[in-house]
């Protein structure tokens, strides 16, 4: 079992909803990422999604697009992100999920990526544009190396597709709360909870809800509904504006989850 599987067992035992934090690795520089990850962990993040920047991020809104541009300009590559993961592992056991698009992984080579990612302390991988239909070889290589493969389930997914997503996923299933790209939203989409109900019929895997979750109120709305929530663009925006405030920002977002975070004053 990966650190991801262990995390969800622990969350279940503690009867607690987990906090998954996304950041674009290498934004603003590769050297800054380990420190930001440590701040997120201190602020209450249970799992870190390390975004690997891609030149053409079709599923991302402007906040993450621009973060990717900054990271690429700073020389971030998939290989460099694996170095960053090694650096994080020197001081932390937080579960790490690589989050990127197919082409950088394809160019790196699935078998090589699975091996190197495992060696770097990565626990799993999510490729936004790898549909389950096209994911056979990728899943095979990742699983052989003992890594989780996380896939997306969307409000538009048919029952047949949700079944496939469940089959190909391990660790957890990433629920997309609404149709759209990544980015902060005023309100939680009405399509989120019905999707959770439909997905439960196909899997016992933990479900994590993401896309558009950007305030403590949004987070609170999912407590008791899913095993974890994902915050992305809001964190990336905080890093852009004031990286020193990331820990406190994370702590505010995680507060409704009932975890104070190491070092928190409560």
């Amino acid at each position, binding site marked *: 079992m990966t650190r991801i599987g262990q995390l969800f067992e622990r969350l279940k035992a503690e009867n607690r909803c987990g906090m998954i934090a996304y950041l674009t690795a290498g934004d603003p520089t590769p050297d800054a990422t380990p420190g930001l990850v440590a701040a997120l962990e201190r602020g209450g993040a249970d799992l870190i999604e390390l975004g690997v920047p891609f030149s053409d991020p079709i*599923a991302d809104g402007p906040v993450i697009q621009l973060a990717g541009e900054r990271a690429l300009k700073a020389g971030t590559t998939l290989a460099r992100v694996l170095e960053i993961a090694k650096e994080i592992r020197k001081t932390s056991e937080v579960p790490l999920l690589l989050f990127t698009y197919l082409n*950088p992984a*394809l*160019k790196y080579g699935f078998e090589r990526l699975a091996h190197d990612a495992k060696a770097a302390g990565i626990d799993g991988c999510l490729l936004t*544009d790898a549909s389950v239909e096209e994911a056979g070889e990728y899943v095979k290589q990742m699983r052989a190396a003992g890594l989780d493969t996380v896939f997306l389930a969307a409000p538009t997914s048919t029952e047949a*597709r949700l079944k496939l997503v469940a089959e190909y996923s391990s660790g957890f299933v990433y629920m997309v709360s609404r149709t*759209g790209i990544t980015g902060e939203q005023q309100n939680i989409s009405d399509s989120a909870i019905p999707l959770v109900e439909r997905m439960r019929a196909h899997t016992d895997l933990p479900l994590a809800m993401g896309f558009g979750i950007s305030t403590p109120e949004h987070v609170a709305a999912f407590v008791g509904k899913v095993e974890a929530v994902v915050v992305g663009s809001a964190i990336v925006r905080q890093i852009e504006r004031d990286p020193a405030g990331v820990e406190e920002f994370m702590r505010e977002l995680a507060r409704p989850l009932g975890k104070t975070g190491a070092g928190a004053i409560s």
Partner: protein
Amino acid sequence: MIATQPDAGGHFGPYGGRYVPEVLMSPLEELQHTYEEARQDPAFHAELDLLLHTYAGRPTPLYHAKRLSEILGGAKLYIKREDLLHTGAHKINNCIGQALLARRMGKKRIIAETGAGQHGVATATVCALFGLDCTVYMGEEDMRRQRLNVFRMRLLGAKVEPVTNGSRTLKDAISEAMRDWVTNVSNTHYLLGSALGAHPYPAMVRDFHRVIGVEARQQILEAEGKLPDAVIACVGGGSNAIGIFHPFIEDDGVRLIGVEAGGRGPALGQHAARFEGGSPGVLQGTRSYLLQDDDGQISLTHSVSAGLDYASVGPEHALLHDLCRAEYGSCNDTDAVAAAVTLSRTEGIIPALESAHAVAAAIRLAPSHPGQTFIVNLSGRGDKDIDIYRENLPELDLR
């Protein structure tokens, strides 16, 4: 024999497929289903054929370019006049087809990407014709160099959204259109303009352009009593090329020659010759040849022709390339402009810069192939490119 249809997953050999975020998978399945149904429906074909005939102006002529052939002193050149179609390029064939499908699916809003603006104009045109809401994404750089087409789209009632990401060209416009589609998928059809993207687009767009090759094949048989020795077309995404190539694929003696943009030269970033400088990868929904760096990041491209300025190529071309059924070469910016001048002055036809790449290849090949017959697909007319021709031919512009 070469398979001329993709498998059930939309694969052309190792290429093609469906690589999109999960949100778009069901809409693509719906589109595929709608298209499969329409293909079997005689009423769909009757309406499409009628519009192609009475509205778009099909069939287009196959014209014997006698003076150009004589001057070159080699192969006999025929020109397939897609430039004479309504809106000035082949793009309208596909737009009429997809607008009919959008209506079948009950989608009232159309989005599209455009490079040179020809697909955007054709999309704006069919949206006016069918009373559909229309938004076209166009890179800022392309809006600058194709101003005339921007105005045409607006005149037709379409919104033109400038795209300011990345290289501000076709690739970035496609990404932005995909983001819109992900967000508004319930009421919106993405009218993709080339034989690119996720299944079923590459095969569907090809099918709507196949009429070019079907007509050309019949016309050359009537004119010459035999098949041509070569069919030549420019390849950006590759829709005009696959449209004219496809009906000739099983005619073994017919060379199929695709011409990519050689731009300013062979250095990465200076051209859009995917088969010369690229390698297989996944971009914007499909697996094909890509211009990319060692880390799998997509390269910037350059061509004087906005319509050829793209880092990937339709997946069926990738398969035809690997099978050596089609040959792909390139022509640089300078030769394309020179070919446009030659065609204008020998035949009185000003070609689009995209199509000028195919003309340039024909001019290069013809002298060494006496006794042979070539068909050149003239995919569009040059009116939209007048500003660029002026920039490149200052000696003609006595301002």
